[in-house]
């Protein structure tokens, strides 16, 4: 079975500082990993994904994430946080061994607050 863990319910960071939102995963085989963002009263929006290739993937709004197989982690990062980055962030995993199944399993989310 696949799962993801987001150990921090809340992350606070000052505007202009780097931010990191943590995610660890558990899946058999090589995972497909995703980050989604949810703004208040809005649906989830795709940020970035790791399928294969470079361990550092870049996504929307200046976000990037680093895949670390040995640590089974996929932390979301941004060099300089903006107040507008304040939102709920979800890590998700898909088990590619389940052929044809595009089902994503989401973590519980981390609320990011960027302080002006």
């Amino acid at each position: 079975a696949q799962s993801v863990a987001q150990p921090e319910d809340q992350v606070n960071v000052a505007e202009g500082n780097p931010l990191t939102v943590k995610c660890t995963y558990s899946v058999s085989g090589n995972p497909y990993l995703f980050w989604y963002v949810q703004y208040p009263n809005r649906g989830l929006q795709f940020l970035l994904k790791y399928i294969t290739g470079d361990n550092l993937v870049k996504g929307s709004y200046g976000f990037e994430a680093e895949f670390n197989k040995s640590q089974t982690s996929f932390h979301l990062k941004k060099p300089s946080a903006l107040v507008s980055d304040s939102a709920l962030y979800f890590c998700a995993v898909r088990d590619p061994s389940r052929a044809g199944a595009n089902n994503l399993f989401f973590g519980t989310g981390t609320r990011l607050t960027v302080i002006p």
Partner: protein
Amino acid sequence: EAGVVQSPRYKIIEKKQPVAFWCNPISGHNTLYWYRQNLGQGPELLIRYENEEAVDDSQLPKDRFSAERLKGVDSTLKIQPAELGDSAVYLCASSPPVLNTGELFFGEGSRLTVL
């Protein structure tokens, strides 16, 4: 391009009443998903359609929940009768047939409050 459209955005009902949610996916997206998001939790898959066929409904509580996607386009999720524990946001998502790499496009959700 229009995104995934859901209605209603908000619904308040008393327990034991029925409720239905509607979703219109992005044009050309053959895969449609219904997720439930409880407060403070991540979305959990209820059902996945490939065109009009429900290919994964293992997490759908079939005693009270039903869904349909008759023509392989829009879909309806129904709860009858609703219970207090059904209060949640019901998210619809769709994805295109190509690549199958897992990027889903979500609607804004339907927030259900059961009193």
